[in-house]
């Protein structure tokens, strides 16, 4: 599985694979750890991992409308929840990947106001990065 992932990711098409990984992870939280494990131990090059970080940000921007909806009980969107869990585990596992774009995005969205659900993402990310 890891060999196949390495082949798919490191031939310059990781943007497409990243899009698929994000799509899967934002729908099925039980696959998050599995996919992170597949990416570990040098399976993905640093460029491929950076492309996945880009895909995370792209997904957050593209689906802003969906993610801003709250459910009947006042919880944030379940897909956003899964995506944030994936992002936090991803950046914790691959600390060499540039976190600045995502942090800048969160800070700008908070400045815009009325984007409470972004605070949820930032909080999860920080909690995970500090090792909790």
């Amino acid at each position, binding site marked *: *599985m890891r060999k196949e992932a390495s082949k798919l990711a490191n031939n310059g*098409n990781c943007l*497409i694979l990243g899009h698929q*990984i994000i799509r899967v992870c934002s729908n*099925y939280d*039980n696959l998050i750890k599995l996919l992170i494990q597949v990416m570990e131990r040098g399976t993905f090059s*640093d460029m491929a991992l*950076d492309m996945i970080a880009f895909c995370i940000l*792209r997904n957050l921007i593209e689906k802003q409308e969906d993610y801003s909806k709250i459910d009947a009980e006042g919880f944030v969107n379940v897909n956003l929840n899964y995506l944030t869990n994936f992002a936090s585990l991803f950046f914790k596992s691959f600390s060499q990947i540039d976190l600045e774009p995502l942090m800048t995005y969160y800070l700008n969205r908070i400045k815009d106001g009325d984007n409470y659900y972004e605070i949820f993402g930032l909080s999860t990310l920080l909690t995970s990065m500090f090792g909790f």
Partner: protein
Amino acid sequence: MIDKELWQILQKIDYKDRYNIYQELLSRGYLSNISLLNRLIDLQPKIAKWTKSISGSDKKDVLE
């Protein structure tokens, strides 16, 4: 090999420019270059097959 050299260049530039390159690659790069497009068309089923292979049983658990 070329990936490593490309990354050597990309990692030194500002993230805004780097992400612009990725976006361009996604939105225009594949459509304007026939060999990249061919590769993309070939790759998509392989990626779908790979995600199915790792997630088939787990997905069932979630859906049930």
